[in-house]
């Protein structure tokens, strides 16, 4: 299945939910300071395991960095 993650086209295998996607990227559900949007809508952490991932979805995965 091809999805867009942070602007990059990615082929992801065996992914059903947002939780699966994040684990495949090495991000655990206990990791703080991270948020994800699916098709420009934020997916709250409590909904990660219940939110499906389908072909063509676009994701933004962010964290806080140094800035003014």
């Amino acid at each position: 299945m091809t999805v867009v993650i942070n602007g990059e086209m990615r082929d992801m295998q065996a992914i059903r939910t947002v939780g699966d996607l994040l684990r495949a990227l090495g991000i655990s559900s206990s990791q703080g300071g991270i948020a994800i949007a699916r098709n420009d809508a934020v997916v709250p952490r409590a909904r990660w395991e219940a939110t499906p991932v389908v072909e063509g979805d676009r994701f933004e995965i962010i964290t806080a960095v140094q800035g003014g």
Partner: protein
Amino acid sequence: MKAQGEFVPFRGVSPLRFAGREFLSRLLIGTGKYADFETMKEAFDASGAEIVTVAIRRVPLEERGTGKCLLDHIDPKKYTLLPNTAGCYSVKDAVLTAQLAREALQTDLIKLEVIGDPNTLFPDNEGLLEAAKVLVKDGFTVLPYTIDDPIVCKKLEDAGCAAVMPLGAPIGSGLGIRNPYNIQIILETIKIPVLVDAGVGTASDCAIAMELGCDAVLLNTAIAGAKNPVAMARAMRLAVEAGRLAYESGRIERKLYATASSPLAGVVRAGGL
């Protein structure tokens, strides 16, 4: 000697209040451009700041676990995080960035930036106002980085922003408060707090902003880019406190001619007459 970072405001300096919150320090600082996290933390301590800004960026997918996690270096008990929407040129990007920041950091605070031009980093007034309305409706405490224009600031107040943050000069320019009269008119025009954001180059710029009656100063480059960031952080803190104290103390009127400070009677006259 007191430990660095222990914030003891002078008696008479009132706390900063906005959106039902209260802060003893009237200096907000950015986390950008520090050579390393150790220097950043020392500068935080020396500045006495209680609110620090952070940017929101895409997680690098290939270089995870490199130990460069900013949040590991900011004590959440000591500092309130103020995420920004820096780098956003459209309402959509700014709104989504704010919503992601709220989810990631569990805060409703947002320093709203909608930039109109990459060379000046001046805000796009129309986009800023539109984004502010969307975010206020969505429950955010919106602190917009704005041009030093009283009309725009009034519109932002009417839109429900918790404060306005007019620039003193372009971001990172160090040019100081370029239009103190506009800042003064903004202060007389609106009721919500006015925080000068951007343009500060050195300590006297902070003092000028605070003497005008601004509620706080937000700066980043002037500390992080100084040769000695920790000492400059201390200087900024003292200048903000000095400026606020002077403002609250009520300065004397300006007069063109001298008024003697010593008694006019009883002056010694050589020759005795």
